[in-house]
């Protein structure tokens, strides 16, 4: 992960080492996002419609990736699963980014007791492995998409908090911030006009990286039964359902697993590329 920039905004590069990764990653994600957005138009079947006469169909022209034990079309369910999974990941990451950045800047810029308290709380949160924290929070709040988003956001919060805090800590000692203070600018103005914009590049890079983690956390929680309740289709939930019939109809677990893999590759390539492009040490 990136450290706080040392002096001023990073120099803009026409081409950076992450360029190819970004293009490939972004292309994958564009396809995935379009598939999710237009799922109702693309999906050949209603993902929730059951048919007792069409249970466990093998892949065919009618059921591209076969059907599950309720006679529901696997391909359609994966498309709709992408929607919930991506939405969960995006919403939780944005929530973590907004709250983490705000708390981090407050902590770093203000310092003192506020900083100590928030940092201590953050340390407690960080002492739990992400999955464990996720399981505890979902177990407390109960399953459901909203609670899942909150749980993932809370577990991702420390990443943004730490980054924003260290950036704010470094920036507040800088001469131009001192100059702002001398000119009598309010703290709000200094933070919103001079500190926040300086940290945003980093935050977006981290967000892209953590988006992939959020997808993974969502899938893992859904897999152990703490995801969106039935009949919602989520990628992790589909893998879990597929496991009930893994030996006879492995496709039911394999196809959604592949979908998770593709999303992870897309997001990771994009995140890594953005990080490299943004990192002064690897920039040419």
């Amino acid at each position, binding site marked *: 992960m990136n450290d706080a920039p040392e002096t001023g905004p990073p120099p803009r590069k026409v081409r950076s080492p992450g360029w190819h990764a970004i293009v490939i990653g972004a292309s994958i994600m564009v396809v995935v996002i379009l598939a999710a957005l237009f799922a109702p138009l693309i999906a050949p079947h209603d993902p929730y419609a059951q048919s007792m006469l069409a249970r466990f169909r093998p892949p065919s022209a009618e059921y591209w990736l076969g059907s599950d034990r309720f006679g529901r079309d696997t391909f359609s369910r994966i498309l709709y699963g992408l929607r919930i999974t991506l939405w969960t990941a995006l919403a939780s990451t944005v929530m973590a980014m907004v709250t983490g950045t705000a708390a981090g800047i407050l902590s770093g810029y203000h310092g003192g007791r506020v900083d100590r308290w928030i940092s201590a709380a953050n340390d407690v949160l960080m002492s739990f492995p992400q999955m464990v924290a996720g399981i505890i929070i979902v177990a407390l709040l109960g399953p459901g998409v909203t609670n899942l988003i909150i749980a993932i956001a809370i577990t991702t919060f420390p990443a943004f908090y730490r980054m924003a805090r260290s950036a704010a800590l470094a920036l507040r000692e800088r001469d131009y911030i001192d100059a702002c203070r001398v000119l009598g600018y309010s703290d709000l103005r200094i933070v919103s006009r001079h500190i926040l914009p300086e940290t945003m590049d980093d935050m977006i890079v981290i967000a892209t990286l953590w988006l992939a983690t959020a997808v993974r956390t969502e899938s893992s929680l859904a897999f152990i*039964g703490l995801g969106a309740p039935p009949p919602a289709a989520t990628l992790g939930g589909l893998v879990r359902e597929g496991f009930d019939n893994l030996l006879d109809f492995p496709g039911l677990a394999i196809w959604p697993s592949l979908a998770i893999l593709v999303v992870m590759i897309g997001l990771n390539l994009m995140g890594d590329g953005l990080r490299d492009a943004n990192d002064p040490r690897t920039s040419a």
Partner: protein
Amino acid sequence: MTRTRMATLTLSTVLGMAMALPSFAGGVLRYGMAAQDLGTMDPHRATTTPDKPITGWLFNGLVRFKPGSDDIGALEPDLAESWERNKDGTVWTFRLREGVKFHGDYGEVTAEDVVYSLNRSADPETSAFASDYRAIDTIEAVDPATVRITLKHPVPSLLGLVANYHGGNIVSKKAAEERGADFGTQPIGTGPFMIKDYIPQERVVFDANPDYFRGVPKLDGIEYRYIPSDSSRDLALKAGELDVSYGRQDQEWIDKTESTEGLVVDIMRPAELQQFHLNTSSPPLDNIEVRRAVATALNRGEFIQFIGSSLAQPAGSVVPNGNLGWDGSTPIHGEGDAEAARGMLTEAGFPDGIELSMVQTSLPTMLGVAQVAQAQLALAGIDLQLNVVDHQTFHSQIRDDRSQVIYYSAARFPVADVFLSQFFHSDSIVATPTAATNFSHCDAADEEIVNARIEPDSDKQNALWATAQKKIIENICAVPLYEQLIAYGRRENVDWGYDLEAEMHLGPVVTEQTDID
């Protein structure tokens, strides 16, 4: 090439021997169960499917169902060697078999133990089956080998109450008093196998009881393993790590297992009646027209298709088919007519549909059935919200009255009174002091249920039971979906030692005759 072949041959021989070894080494039957953990081994409290088979080899009753049979007309002596009754059937005297020993150092079975056990079963503080024993007035030890039971009035089947089933199981008085609540994990009975070890969330281990009164068991012991995932249990059975395994209760599993070499499927009664109980005290289900809409939207035929015809059979009443007093003459909703259901909801004042909440177990077969229902109800504008929890939590939450729709699968002692009393009499309403399993808060047929209990004339008794079923069905306290037999997978070399057609413990019971060839 030859060398490679030799190596392969040697390797496979060694591997083959290594894999074959365990079955030579010990006659321990490895029994796989679809549960996260043990609930209890206390026979007077064990109500769940995964807990019941265990009580079958730990305990005995005064009489017993023949192994592999559910015929109440063919009960045979167990701890009692003979019995007699007075003319009107209100005083029963049992003569105990001599020299039967409890497990460990708990001594011989005496009339005191029997009196203690039956009183314990009749006490709601210590038993889940107390209501079955209401008709008993006194239980006395006439002498150390004689027990006399006096009834307030004749009952349909007194022998059923002292059989090796539920409250009829005899426990050691000394052990139960000594161990209190720990009796559930440290049970002492008289059965062919006794508790050796319990490792939470993993297994319960049983040793053969060398003093068993029917003879020393052929097996050395039983390992009862908790493996909640169907696929994991299947793999273990196939790989030879399990000898017996609770099956996935559907047609695909049966077909696949039967076609696997070395494996056979046991399908047994009793058929468990699968019902949706509708909480008649919880709005909007307190409105009978709303309940009618729910029942109409459910498609009973589809559930049989979903489970498959080897296991599922149509349900004809709110008590299981084959029960003494069963009556299938009242028509049941469950047409799967979404259009009509919508109309009913509109007329009942819910033109935009309704939302119902349902606490549901994560056991795959039951969750599957709930999801089929969810999709059927959705077509009629009924949003069935599933709150999926693990099986133990499910059992405790539905007993806390926390679900509007309750999917319950059950078989009970095969006399209509038991099922009607536990599920539909107002004394049994959940979250009350006398609670049993009346999830629907049904009180439509209290009078008939009570009167049938004491009716000496069997025709009149049957008529009362029939009326009770009619009233409950017409009041839509529950929607019977279908009845389901029980499927277990077994390795061919396991010989139960009896014909397994039915098992009141909802799973094959290991007896002293059971063996692994």
